[in-house]
């Protein structure tokens, strides 16, 4: 028995959801339509298909009764229906509206974590790289700000004065501090799209700065010196 392939409108995902426990059916998004493949049994045929094909062993799609293929099945990211249509909790019957905003606060914590980054002055880093062995630099990255502050990241960190930061979930927290309450962390990550492409550098007062991934450079003597020269011209 050969498989069938159908296309559905996006709105028909609710109809398809009635079959989401079926393990023999796969679905994928393609050109703003839902593509479904599976054995064309009764339930499958009940779906409100826009187009229907039979699929042969060479991934060719045939309209019912046709001797020549209509098209070749495009390369799609097929997912089982359970993954394609994830379940979500229903909205509360009596939803409450949060009107007040909660300020993000940091508080000292007992957790002992290794520091991942250090925030220091550009001149401190410039002095350090002048005499530091190359092997102590090559695993480090740095990002400088226009006010000549620089964040150096990488383990082991250079032995220079500055504020140490720990890293978890792309959030850089002052060493020895965590969110108050700690659960804020997961909410923040969920809420902030920027956390996917930026590092969020939190200060003890709860304020934060967003550092794009692209702002980090490898620590080399020339990169640090050129950055320092540029900043001297800017400032």
């Amino acid at each position, binding site marked *: 028995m050969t498989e069938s392939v159908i296309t559905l409108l996006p709105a028909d995902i609710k109809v398809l959801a009635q079959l989401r426990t079926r393990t023999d059916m796969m679905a994928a998004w393609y050109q703003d339509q839902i593509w479904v493949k599976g054995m064309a049994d009764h339930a499958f045929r009940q779906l409100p298909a826009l187009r229907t094909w039979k699929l042969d062993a060479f991934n060719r799609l045939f309209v019912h009764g046709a001797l020549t293929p209509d098209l070749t099945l495009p390369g799609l990211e097929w997912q089982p229906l359970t993954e394609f249509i994830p379940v979500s909790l229903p909205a509360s019957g009596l939803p409450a509206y949060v009107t007040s905003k909660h300020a993000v606060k940091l508080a000292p914590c007992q957790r002992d974590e290794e520091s991942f980054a250090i925030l220091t002055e550009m001149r401190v880093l410039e002095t350090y790289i002048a*005499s530091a062995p190359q092997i102590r630099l090559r695993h480090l990255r740095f990002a400088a700000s226009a006010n000549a502050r620089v964040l150096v990241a990488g383990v082991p960190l250079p032995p220079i004065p500055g504020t140490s930061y720990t890293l978890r979930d792309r959030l850089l927290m002052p060493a020895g501090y965590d969110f108050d309450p700690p659960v804020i962390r997961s909410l923040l990550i969920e809420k902030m799209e920027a956390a996917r492409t930026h590092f969020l550098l939190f200060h003890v007062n709860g304020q934060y700065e967003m550092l794009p991934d692209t702002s980090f450079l490898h620590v080399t003597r020339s990169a640090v010196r050129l950055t320092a020269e540029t900043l001297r011209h800017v400032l």
Partner: protein
Amino acid sequence: MELTEFISGLINEGNVTVAADLLSFEEADLRTAAIHLQQYYEDDCREMPYTAPALDMEAARWAAGYLYTTVQFILLRNLDASLLETHLPAYKGERTAAAIYSADLTLRYLPDLFLLAKGLSPEDPLIARFYQTAHQWPFSAAAIPLTEQVDLSAINEHPSLRQAYTDRIIQARNLSQCRLPENLPFVQAALGTHAAILWPQFDTVINEFIL
């Protein structure tokens, strides 16, 4: 503009072209080559620890010509070994810190050429010449394992050269140079307490050596 194009190719593209015959460089070529070397020196200084030694153009130009001819000897297999002496003359000036660093602008490619030449023909008289040059210019030959003692006094006296030389030994993982008493303390200081992370094999090998 043979030498100029050679230096430009080496610096900017990482590949070089040499003439099919041994030649002397024209005056105009040497002048333009010097401008390229000056620019290269200014760029390279930024990557050096501390303050790099001054530019010694004589040494820089000699080294560029030396490297050019060495490439010719590797590629042109019909050249006679007797020509090595006349066409690869030793540096006549004093090997000061400035000369060492200036010559290194091009001599730093010597270890790569050494490996290439050794791979082509281990018995080539050019290999003996390589070792001789490596002993005279150890700063540029940090990646070549040398069996005999080399004079590191000029390197040791200049903090920039000393640190850069240590960097190169570590970069090349050249344990034979690490083991030398004049290098070991610098390598240990560079790795500090992080040797297990930065160079896991170092402690094992050095402990075996010391014990």
